[in-house]
């Protein structure tokens, strides 16, 4: 494996290979790179800092235990870590049977605007790819009609089924189904317009 040039960060796959070989420092570097993204996602779903920190630890412990089976050809490490974080967080919410259906809306417009101020969203160790991607997706979500965005958020970050989303919002089920489909289609169009390939 090539050594990174001075000043050039080691790529994710190289760090994962070091983790698989038992290198704890490499795991620490991956935490520095993705820990904040993982924690933020967990917090978004469970709404409790201590639990989000436990879940964040669990995500990186899973990386430690199964780094050897990570296949970079199948996807990015960031996506793999965040999927695990998403799954663990929803499991935790369901285990506590305290689904956050009344959680306040996330202001995607403000979140997108905050990117202009690095002090608000400082993540200097995070990957450039992750940051650019996040910018594009936040911008797209901010442009989505609020009812579509709300339905998608409750489903994906609240772990609710479509009938549960309908009950939470007081809308007919058919309306919720239509909004989710229309919202996802609109997001595809917005991301294509922003030059982002969701499958990348």
């Amino acid at each position, binding site marked *: 494996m090539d050594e990174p040039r001075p000043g050039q960060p080691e790529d994710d796959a190289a760090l994962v290979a070091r983790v698989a070989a038992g290198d704890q420092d490499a*795991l*620490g570097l991956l*935490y520095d790179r993705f*820990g*904040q*993204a993982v*924690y*933020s*996602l967990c*917090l*978004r779903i469970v709404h409790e*800092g*201590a*639990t*989000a920190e*436990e*879940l*964040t*630890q*669990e995500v990186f*412990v*899973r990386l*430690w*235990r*199964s780094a*050897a*089976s*990570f296949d970079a050809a199948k996807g990015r490490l*960031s*996506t*793999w870590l*965040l*999927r695990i974080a998403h799954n*663990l967080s*929803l*499991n*935790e919410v369901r*285990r506590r049977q305290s689904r956050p259906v009344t959680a306040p809306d996330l202001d995607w417009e403000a*979140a997108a605007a905050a990117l202009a101020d690095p002090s608000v969203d400082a993540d200097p160790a995070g990957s450039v790819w*992750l940051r650019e991607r996040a910018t594009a*997706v*936040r911008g797209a*979500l901010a442009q989505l009609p609020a009812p579509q965005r709300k339905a*998608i958020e409750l*489903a*994906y*970050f609240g772990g*609710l*089924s*479509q*009938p549960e*989303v309908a009950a939470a919002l007081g809308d007919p089920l058919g309306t919720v*189904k239509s909004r*989710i489909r229309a919202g*996802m289609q609109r997001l*595809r169009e917005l*991301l294509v317009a922003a030059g*982002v390939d*969701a*499958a990348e």
Partner: protein
Amino acid sequence: MDRMDRRDSHVDDLIDAYALGALEPDEVDAVEHHLETCPRCRVLVARARALADAFLLAVPRIAPSPDLRDRLMRRIAAEAAGSAASMDTSRPTSATTTTANPVARFLRSLLGGEGETHDAGGLLRDLLADPECVILPVPGTDEAPGASARFVGSPHRREGVLVAGGLRPSEAGRAYQVWFLHGGQPQPNTVFRADHSGHGAGVFRLDRPVFDFDTVAVTPEPEGGSPAPTGPIVLAGALRRE
């Protein structure tokens, strides 16, 4: 919805909600049944999942406690040392972080490829790398109150591992058999032996998704297994997706 209705007609109207995890269980079954035979819809699902993954990246960043890194690294150091003291003792525990027990130590030995059950270790490593991995407790019954097990599987796979501890060591010609129950009807599955310390692991393979069953159970049986249970149930646990 009749799942057979969906085998020959595409499921475009369900795919986005499927990728978001927003379908009801019968709709999930219908989609997955259809996907088994439809490459076109598998491509659409992959695209919808990629779009859903993009949301994960977009959550605005909030910094965790500055000491979280130190706590994580202490826990990793403890794991690396094979220490039983791998719990983060500075925080309350949750179901997702229960590792300081005999089953967890046996799990770690499996993951390290130790002993006779290295096949289980390989599958365990695969499952733990699966974002959909589900780990469920399988407690001992009144017949074996000191026993416990972990079910490790995934909703999208038809195989998994049951890792048990606290069992009576298997005598010559005897073993433990795993059963999957649906509506109270047991379906025989893999057989495993408990070692001298009472630990054992069985790799199970099924002809349908694991969450089609509602319960997993273990009974002592002859070494070759039985078509129907003959021994008392020593381990039993509900199979739930969450």
